[in-house]
């Protein structure tokens, strides 16, 4: 059984208006109607200040700031409206080095284009139902990049500490 996602608000950032239509159609099919769009990262950042979306879906390839520049602004910018907002990166770049770069920038989820409807639902549901903890380190701030827990790990816990806000 799925959970109802209709209460969510989502900001879509993509400089390709065709993709706005695609993402809107898919989100509406999930009954998510509270959707806004920005053509570029700067406008999206402004939109975040006024509107406070629950989740951001952003493209990677944009000008003048690309999707990862936008993620950095959101996660690390001194004036970020919400450094913790979940971010899904849409990208046609699926090479492993690109995926690692995106992960290390602080995205929660990566979704390959062309968009799979099921995959987008799954990622949004995962963000709602099983959010990952956040990590604050010298050179990283964002969702924990460890996808699983190795139950057989017997070494020391190297992280300084773990706590809830």
């Amino acid at each position, binding site marked *: *059984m799925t*959970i109802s996602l209709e209460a969510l608000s989502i900001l879509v950032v993509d400089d390709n208006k065709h993709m706005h239509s695609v993402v809107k159609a898919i989100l509406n099919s999930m009954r998510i109607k509270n959707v806004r769009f920005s053509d570029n990262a700067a406008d999206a950042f402004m939109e975040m200040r006024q509107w406070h979306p629950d989740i951001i879906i952003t493209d990677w390839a944009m000008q003048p700031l690309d999707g990862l520049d936008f993620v950095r602004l959101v996660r690390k910018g001194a004036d970020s409206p919400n450094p913790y907002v979940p971010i899904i990166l849409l990208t046609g770049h699926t090479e492993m080095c690109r995926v690692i770069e995106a992960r290390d920038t602080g995205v929660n989820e990566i979704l390959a284009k062309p968009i799979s409807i099921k995959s987008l639902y799954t990622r949004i549901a995962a963000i709602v139902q099983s959010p990952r903890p956040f990590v604050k380190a010298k050179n990283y701030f964002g969702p924990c990049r460890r996808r699983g827990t190795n139950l057989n790990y017997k070494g020391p816990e190297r992280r300084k500490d773990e706590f809830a806000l």
Partner: protein
Amino acid sequence: MSDDNDSSRVFTPPNLLRAKVGNKPGPDLNQIVAKAEAALTELKDDYEVWIRDDLQTLRDAVASLRQEFDPKVLERIKTLGHEIKGQGSTYGYPLLTTAGNLLYSFIDRDADVAAQHLDLIYAHVDFMTLILNQNIHDQGDANAQGVLSGLQSAAEKAHGDHTRPASATRSAT
């Protein structure tokens, strides 16, 4: 990824989204997919207008490069290839996704080489136009696969000719 280890802090922000959506069940996933596919089908006519515009932009860009080389124009062609890759399958044209990716990869691998093979770039555009004009939705279409294979071979040859040492080229010929 060492930053997730030494001297890092791990914390769990309150899950406000879980509270916001509550426990109300949503539509079945198959229903979501069916509804989304129906909505995307309604957009298909629009898409065919958009993609034809994009293909014309590509043709104009290649014509412009033939007149005068501009790396920004070549970059624009690469970007459009990437965008076509990202949308074709969504509208039932998986071969446009494949061809868009081939075009993007050909330029991304070495723009200088691509700039010397404008005819091959144009061939990608012709192939995408053919897919659209002949309404080819089957990824396995034998004729289309034959053309794709030819484009791939030509791209490999173009890049290979430029990376092969001169002595190797001579001995191979």
